[in-house]
């Protein structure tokens, strides 16, 4: 038991060391362009896990694992083509899972808010289900994807190392079928993160405040 605690302690310290960052985000996705024609409603069901390594004070890189769910119910309607007609209800479901490398460039500030630009690159796994009446058509696959993003980190004075994060990005996954040319959406994220770097920054700031007071 003690061994496990030591191992856990070692890795916790490692992950929460000064240069590392781990966060979880809640994600809202707004479909745009051709994807919006397939599924129009905004997705309020999305999340991601965000790992970063601060190489310097103004640059970090890492991994981003995200998931979003899209859904639309199309009421009963009649469709005509050639010598055919069909009346049915339709349901569209789409699940997008992202595996992205990410790079962040931070703007140094003297306040608790830290703005940044980011670029995420990687692959997306897409599960696309279309239900027409009692028929289900599915289409699964992978596509290259990227997301330019701007965001803000809000360092919290206490507890040490904690920060809130908010960001906005444009996600583009190169995955197409008969219904859309690519998976494109604008996403808005809210999350919470922990990093040893923030902890160190807070300590530095407090020390500086003490010295100024003297």
């Amino acid at each position, binding site marked *: 038991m003690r061994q496990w605690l030591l191992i856990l302690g070692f890795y916790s310290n490692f992950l929460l060391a000064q240069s590392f960052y781990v966060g*979880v985000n809640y994600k809202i996705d707004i479909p745009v362009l051709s994807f919006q024609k397939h599924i129009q409603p905004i997705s309020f069901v999305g*999340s991601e896990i965000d790992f970063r390594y601060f190489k310097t004070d103004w640059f970090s890189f890492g991994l981003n694992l995200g998931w979003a769910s899209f859904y639309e*119910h199309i009421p009963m309607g*009649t469709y005509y083509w050639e010598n055919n007609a069909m009346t049915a209800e339709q349901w569209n479901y789409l699940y997008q899972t992202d595996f992205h490398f990410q790079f962040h460039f931070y703007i140094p500030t003297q306040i608790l808010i830290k703005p940044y630009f980011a670029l995420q690159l990687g692959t997306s796994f897409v599960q696309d289900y279309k239900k027409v009446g009692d*028929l289900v058509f599915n289409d699964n696959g992978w596509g290259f994807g990227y997301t330019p993003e701007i965001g803000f980190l809000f360092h919290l004075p206490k*507890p040490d190392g904690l920060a809130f994060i908010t960001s906005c990005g444009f996600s583009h996954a190169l995955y197409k079928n008969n219904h859309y040319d690519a998976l494109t959406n604008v996403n808005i994220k809210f*999350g*919470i993160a922990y990093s040893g770097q923030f902890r160190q920054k807070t300590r530095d700031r407090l020390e500086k405040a003490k010295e100024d007071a003297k």
Partner: protein
Amino acid sequence: MRFTLINISAQLLLLTFLSSCLKNKFEPVGEGDIVFSAYDQNEDFVGFTTFALVDSVGKVDMTNLGAIDSILEEPYRSIILNQIEVNMIAYGYSKVSTVDSADILINANLILSPSGDLVSQYSFVGGNEEFEADWWKNAHYIGEPNYWGINAIALYRFRLPYYFTEDNGTLLIEMIDVNSLDSVNQKIYVPWVAGVRAIYTGSNIGNRLIQAVNQCFLQSEYLRH
């Protein structure tokens, strides 16, 4: 202050993970009916004025050749036939009781085929893009040409819709053009077909049948006089 922040953070974390598990993944609750129709684009439906309606509705079990239940039970049988008649009259056709005085004959059958291979059961006849559907040969199909006293096989001059596959309980309404009889080659043609998938499963079948048969005609405006 410290406790409040930790509390807020914990709630945010919880919200994040709970929201990802929310309801979007559940299957929708609702009827799975699909109403379909198709027609021969070379046919002039305005030329038809009288119709004869089949006297019963077959229950065509394509999965079990030995099935003995060949008639669809009441009240579904009457509902289907009544709704067809109401719609045909509303579209300007007159009902007659004999084949000799009818321009078109209307059949209705319920096809049970969970195996989902109806498309593959089409047989190509001749070189004229003429298609034959297997259910016409089934012992329980009611309304094949011989049933009406016509010595011919019924053929389509258009391909039937693909969503016939993977089905269970499809109502088929088919129209035979009496004037198209080719006595020499023993062929007769089907210029219009309509139907409803999955109508024989689920609840409230009677009301769904009424709406579905009405919809078959609503989406086939070319039949209207």
